[in-house]
């Protein structure tokens, strides 16, 4: 029985690191603000939101102290890479125009929000996105989105959130001790296979109504010995399903109203 159990776990570990990307929200009624799409052009949904503002990413790491990872973890570098790779992917691969709000990025824009800070807005939007609702958000969030539209003149807002769990040195030590006891490892490995991994989500809200119009979820679990993910491979996995932006030659650009420019 023991060899069979070990073979079963080895087979599971062979399949370990299974990753998948799923589009969980894809609204067909999307309204841009900064342009009027020409009639009879190519079909686009989220691609109509040509100009996007990218909020600071909301990431959680385990262990929180990178020095406790079994393999070296540089969470700050990963956060910076995500902040840089998301706008790069959206502009160079999908043709969107982006405005970055993350202070970690050199050319970030600044803005003033009514009633809450940018971090608070990120938390509120993350909570709202989890509901997967078709309805607009509550008034406080809606007012912030309107302020973003007026100040930055964008069609949509992008929020990246995620969590990464890596085996820590303590867990590795305990695992070796359990392995020495024979069957102990058989209990520990399945738990680690479920716990260790990455899960990232990209949410896009249209600024006209504040609704969540597109969401993609990338998850990679099952490998208890997984190394920390790299942003340059992670972001293409997460954002690949997004459709390209409507080309500018197929739009009639609407200039930002002078009254909003002067505010």
């Amino acid at each position: 029985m023991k060899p069979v159990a070990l073979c079963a776990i080895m087979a599971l570990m062979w399949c370990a690191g299974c990753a998948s990307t799923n589009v969980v929200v894809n609204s067909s009624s999307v309204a841009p603000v900064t342009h009027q799409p020409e009639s009879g052009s190519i079909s686009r949904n989220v691609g109509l939101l040509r100009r996007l503002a990218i909020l600071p990413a909301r990431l959680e790491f385990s262990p929180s102290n990178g020095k406790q990872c079994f393999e070296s973890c540089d969470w700050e570098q990963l956060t910076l890479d995500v902040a840089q790779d998301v706008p790069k992917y959206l502009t160079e691969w999908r043709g969107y125009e982006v405005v970055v709000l993350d202070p970690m990025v050199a050319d970030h824009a600044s803005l003033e929000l009514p009633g809450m800070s940018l971090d608070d807005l990120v938390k509120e939007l993350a909570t709202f996105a989890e509901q997967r609702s078709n309805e607009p958000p509550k008034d406080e969030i809606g007012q912030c989105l309107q302020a973003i539209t007026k100040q930055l003149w964008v069609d949509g807002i992008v929020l990246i959130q995620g969590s990464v769990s890596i085996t820590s040195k303590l867990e590795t030590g305990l695992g070796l001790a359990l392995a020495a006891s024979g069957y102990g490892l058989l209990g520990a490995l399945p738990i680690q296979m479920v716990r260790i991994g990455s899960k990232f989500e990209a949410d896009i809200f249209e600024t006209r109504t504040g609704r969540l119009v597109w969401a993609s979820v990338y998850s990679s679990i099952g490998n208890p010995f997984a190394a920390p993910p790299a942003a340059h491979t992670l972001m293409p996995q997460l954002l690949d399903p997004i459709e390209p932006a409507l080309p500018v030659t197929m739009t009639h650009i609407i200039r930002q109203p002078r009254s909003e420019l002067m505010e």
Partner: protein
Amino acid sequence: MVLKDLPLSYFAPIPLFALFLIASSCTTSTGARKQSDYDPAQSSNAEFVSSRPEEVIAPLTEDDAVFSPVPRRFLGLEELRSGPTAVRVRMARAADLENFGRFTQTEAMTVAFASMIVVSGAFGAAALPLLGVYAAWGSIFFGGAVPGMLAFEKHRQASIAEAIAKVDLPQIVQTALQRRLVSLLGESITAPSSDLDIEREVEVVILSYGFLWNANVPDTACSFLQAEIRLTIPNHETQKDWVYMEPSRRSDDAPPAYCSYSERLFADDSALARQALSDNAEILASIVARRLESSQ
């Protein structure tokens, strides 16, 4: 010892060993074809794609070959309104599948590691004299498996090419361009006809289009399209301009080439790939119309 006396379990790892050898060779050959080594004229991919062969256009001059992303301004556009203007779209060569490797890296590595695990265990369990038996069986299976896998890969490429050939890209560009130019230039726009002596013509020659394997990102393919705009107006020499929508270069007014993982791109009878080609055709028509409009 007689071969027939040996239990079957001794021979089980041999096919996997053969697959391991194949996977190892495929892993090294995938992506080995560089775009610069690819000669469309000699490629066998073109035969998988049905096309309407057109005359080969004259090669670009040395000046033309210098890539410029900036659209040019056309001259004499007011002449287009003063008489019938023909709109013509034609194709220079068949659709291409460029730089397509064999198996994806994921497929090759999966087979390689599975084989390694089983074969290493088998070798540990078997006696050394059996190594000769394994080598004999391995060569038999190698000789049979390789042609089989090559045939599978050829069939897959043919399926992709056949699905993509369903998109009549020149016709889509023709229809979209005529629609746009009618709204821009009025009812003077006509379809090309050999009976009419057309002095004014907007011609779009599609130089190349298709998909190429993206060597920079594993298991991804990108669309590409390159076209020439030719404007014929009385009292002016034929004016030319180019539109590039490729991963390595693109015109300023063109969007990035569409790249995606091949699993998504060519799933469901290459639905996403066909959509990308159709979109490229519409985009090309909009770029041509916008350049003519902005030159006025």
